[in-house]
């Protein structure tokens, strides 16, 4: 118990030290650029201003909370659809060497394509820019989940397979009682990587698509003579939300990892 408290104390100290280092460097950059990049303190004022009424929802002005939720919704839909395709497809590839050999080259060609390259294609297909950015998220969040799921499934120990074989499990029972539970930790690793990619990509997507969202907010402030302070605030919010999403999936992963 005491050791735990001490350990926690140290990790808080390290965190504070890291933050102080970041603030120090930031402040230095701010001084060198003679305030072109606002200091942490000035940014704090901007932050308070931005956060004043986060859910203000006027036709000509949307609060930062509305923008955040709209970005999250797009990520959620694209990521959700991607996972719905990636997990079953991962099951198929993981359990069939032939399917893996057929699909793998396609995967190797498509995976390294920059997310932004999918945007115009999505635009051509859907004729709608918000849908195009969802399409982009969808494609990008496919790969990590697909690769990790199929890796998990292809590594099911012979012992577990034997149980299914010896007691005559149906295909469905095999999938939900052996394949899914065994590969769940791998699936969550994939989902965690995917949500990270999706969150990274949404900012770029919204810069292209416009509309309401954190990405467009950064773009707008950057180009229409807006404030660098607001850009910094947006960057910090994007980073914090990304961290939270990652933590969420890490805890889900822990929750579904069984003791052997």
């Amino acid at each position, binding site marked *: 118990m005491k050791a735990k408290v001490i350990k926690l104390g140290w990790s808080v100290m390290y965190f504070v030290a890291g933050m102080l280092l970041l603030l120090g460097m930031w402040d230095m950059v701010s001084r060198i650029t003679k305030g072109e990049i606002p200091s942490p303190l000035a940014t704090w004022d901007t932050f308070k201003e931005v956060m004043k009424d986060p859910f203000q929802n006027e036709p000509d002005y949307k609060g930062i909370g509305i923008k955040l939720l709209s970005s999250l919704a797009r990520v959620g839909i694209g990521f959700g659809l991607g996972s719905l395709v990636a997990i079953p497809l991962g099951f198929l590839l993981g359990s069939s060497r032939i399917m893996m050999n057929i699909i793998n080259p396609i995967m190797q060609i498509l995976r390294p394509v920059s997310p932004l390259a999918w945007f115009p294609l999505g635009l051509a297909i859907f004729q709608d820019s918000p849908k195009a950015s969802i399409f982009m998220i969808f494609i990008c969040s496919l790969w990590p989940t697909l690769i990790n799921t199929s890796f998990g499934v292809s590594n099911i120990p012979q*012992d577990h397979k*034997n*149980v299914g074989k*010896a*007691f*005559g499990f149906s295909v469905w029972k095999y999938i939900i009682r052996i394949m899914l*539970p*065994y590969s769940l930790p791998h699936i969550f690793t994939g989902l965690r990587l995917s949500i990270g990619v999706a969150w990274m990509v949404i900012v770029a997507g919204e810069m292209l698509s416009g509309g309401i969202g954190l990405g467009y907010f950064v773009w707008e402030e950057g180009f229409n003579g807006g404030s660098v302070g607001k850009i910094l605030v947006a960057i910090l919010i994007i980073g914090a939300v990304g961290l939270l999403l990652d933590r969420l999936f890490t805890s889900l992963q822990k929750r579904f990892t069984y003791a*052997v």
Partner: protein
Amino acid sequence: MRSSAITTTQNIADSILQPVLTPSTAIDIKNVTVSFKTAKGSYTAVKEISLSVQKGEIISLIGHSGCGKSTLMGTISGMVKPTAGDVTANGKPVMGPGPDRGIVFQNYSLLPWLTVYRNIYEAVDAALKDLSKGEKKELVERNLKSVHLWDHKDKLPGQLSGGMKQRVAIARAFAINPSILLLDEPFGALDALTKSNMHVELLKLWNLDNREKTIVMVTHDVEEAIFLSDRVVVMNNGPAATIKEIVSVPLDRPRNKRDIVHDPVYMNIHDKLLSLLIDKFSIDDIKD
């Protein structure tokens, strides 16, 4: 002309009567060879083995590691397909695993994400599809109680000791009520004391079932083989392993673990099995 007609009739009659006349044969292995393809070419694990096991008989396959005893048993369970020869179980050719043959695996093979109860329930549910839900639950409960694990039914396998895991695996195999029970080095990972208890528990389950279940066990433990079996099948070292000798164990049942070791019959069999399996008995036997 006439005599050939008689022969044909005789053959047909034989083929019909054979299973009826010898209903006591539970497992019939005929000229079974198993070869595997490996990176270095074909590897023959067992070669032209024939063995017949009576209904209600307990036999042990014993031999050194890698002598193909597990492979031979795999051909009975249907997990291994023979390259040549036939295996018949309960009068039917073995085409794959089936609910008439229960398997207890070497390393328990419990699903770590399912509770003790679910591990057995899922097996019963898959193997005995025609039973109602209530009947399945009843079976699980009865079998878990018979291995004294009902109080642990909600635990995950990771929370159990080795002996408890093995009891779950045995309860799972018994729950589908197979007429043939196949045990692949079932007690190999247990300590001597737990192992000894498990032997008695296994025989108790077999007894409760009127000694009607046929049990085939793979082991490399001589004492275990004698205590449990009616016959001990000693195998040659692989590759291309064959049966070296079949040793009968004519000891009365129920056997008492403590008394049996002083029985001259036991001691004879023990010596015989040791000489068949071991060629070094003392440091004097090691030649420089």
